[in-house]
């Protein structure tokens, strides 16, 4: 059996997801027994347009990105969006929440017209995406699980329940009990509630679950004393593209 050829690409992003993959180290080397990496700009010089699986990090933020994305789609059999920027437009979509002209003017002043940009979009808003690896950043072990599923011809299963479930399994004290608030109740699990486990809150980086109870959560946030604007900020940090409660 020939090894599937794998390529990595990035768009508007911090490249932290590819770093998570590079950080797999020995496991990455072990994975290379089964796949051939033909393009990974962050760590290798070689590049080829002959690949089976394309991993794409980052959001589409300008027209110029679309052509590049379409080329990747036509070259690859399987396209995987990796990381929040690619799956849900991530932090990049924060700029979508305000009038784009204003944002551009704020940043570029009179020269705004020289810099091409539009509202940040996830990859699947431009091309068909076969799989999504959620998170900001992605988890190395979830990347490996996806690779194994692809190599063994299995379905790749992403949890479709809120982070709360995993937060309970992690035996964390609920952040609401600690006087903080979070969006874990509407955010897709699969992270093991890692941020809460590390003392922070769930920010929502894996995006909304398929059927989030956004209105119930808005009510809960209200109950915990958040102003309307603060509630929207909570939802917009990562869900700006997917949308907040009504």
């Amino acid at each position: 059996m020939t090894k599937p050829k794998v390529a990595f690409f990035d768009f508007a992003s911090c490249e932290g997801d590819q770093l998570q993959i590079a950080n797999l180290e020995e496991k990455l080397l072990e994975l290379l027994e089964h796949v051939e990496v033909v393009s990974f700009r962050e760590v290798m010089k070689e590049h080829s347009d002959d690949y089976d699986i394309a991993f794409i990090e980052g959001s589409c933020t300008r027209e110029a990105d679309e052509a590049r994305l379409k080329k990747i789609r036509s070259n690859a059999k399987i396209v995987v969006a990796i990381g929040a920027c690619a799956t849900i437009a991530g932090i990049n979509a924060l700029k979508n929440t305000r009038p784009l002209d204003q944002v551009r003017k704020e940043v570029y002043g009179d020269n705004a017209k020289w810099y091409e940009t539009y509202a940040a979009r996830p990859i699947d808003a431009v091309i068909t995406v076969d799989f999504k690896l959620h998170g900001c950043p992605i988890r190395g072990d979830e990347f490996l699980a996806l690779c194994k599923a692809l190599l063994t011809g299995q379905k790749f299963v992403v949890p479709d329940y809120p982070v709360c479930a995993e937060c309970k399994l992690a035996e964390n004290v609920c952040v609401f009990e600690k006087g903080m608030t979070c969006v874990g109740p509407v955010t897709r699990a699969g992270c093991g509630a890692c941020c809460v486990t590390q003392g922070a809150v769930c920010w929502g980086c894996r995006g909304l679950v398929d059927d989030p109870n956004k209105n119930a959560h808005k009510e809960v946030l209200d109950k915990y004393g958040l102003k309307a604007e603060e509630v929207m900020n909570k939802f917009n940090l990562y869900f700006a593209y997917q949308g907040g409660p009504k």
Partner: protein
Amino acid sequence: MSGANLNIDLHYITRVEGHGNIVVNAKDGKVDKVEWQVPEAPRFFEAMVIGQKWDVVHHITSRICGICSIGHTLASLKATEAAMGIKISEQTLDLRRLAVHAENLQSHVLHIGYLALPDLMGVGSVIPLASSHPEEVKTVVRLHRLANEMSDLICGRTTHPQRLIPGGFAKLPTEEELENLKKRLLTAEPDVMAVAKLVKALSPKLPAFTRETEYVGLTCDSEYALYDGDLASTDGGREPVSKYLSWTNEYCVPQSTAKYTKRKRGSLMVGALARFNLNHAKLTKKAQALAKDLGLVAPCYNPYMNTVAQLVEVAHGFEDAVSIIDSILKKGIKDETPNVKPKAGKGSAAVEVPRGILIHDYTYDGNGVCTKANCIIPTNQNHSNIQLDMEALVPRIIAKPQKEVELALEMLVRAYDPCISCSTHYLKVEFKK
């Protein structure tokens, strides 16, 4: 004369973080154009943080860069704390000093081992080295993982840390965990020396190119400045970070979505080599000895030696981290819950991150909502220097075959270890033709 015509258009240079292009046009031995371009998509972080509260800003700005996310988080927290007059405890300070070491270690080891070494060994990536030089690769992997685990323990994740919050830590390492970390850090020395031996053996392959320039970094009297210090230059001068604007005159060039910086000269350099040139006397004795052994002597004007300077900082980092842990353990870990009361103010702060000085500057209103932000990224400060280095280098090597010229230029860019995602966080200055 061979190679008199050059047409180099290296699109998306590899083994650096982010997108950068090199364009060189030469005809009949005369250089028409040498250009370092940064075509990365601009990301508007300044606009993103406006309207956000003080306790989210560091989370957002961490996303400027995956590889320097700990540095961005720390610079962000320090700026927020400066704006609101928040004092941090001695324990927080010590742990944050460890955090800076952790990130510098993992980033430097990654750069030396995975990004720079393949050039010196004549291969395209670390992947073939895994089978041709398994021991060397294992050594690098071991060091890198140790640095990552140190980041995980202190910061709660290597990429986009979770434990670092305004005023202190969301979660503290236990004394037992720190003891274990210390034990592991102490085992790193032979590995560092093994990498040093390898780099020393390969160092003749580093081009002997020099161009005198200005080196800028943080400096402080008590230690090799990383977490804190004043702005200082090899051209002389020392000022508090609040005066950063006069040190980092940013400007734009048409070929880049990232800003360029200069101070008094046409360019300046920040990063490990700059820090070494400025503060080498404050390195640990072992790190100083290693520098000498590797032929790194201040002032060093060869940008390719930045990789060697990083290696010296790795030796320093492992050793200094052990003494910081000792001092924390001596005092014992105390439970401290940061208690921040937001207030209006403006504050700026700097941290020495792997690629040089990183400055964040925020203004908050009375509700702790950010109204203005500015971030000065190390790689931006180096762009002009890369451009001027290329302009100086190309005529010297123009007679060589195109492939060799390409490699020399790529290696030059890589030596700066540029972080291009970082540097395109936003643009705001005028476009100059």
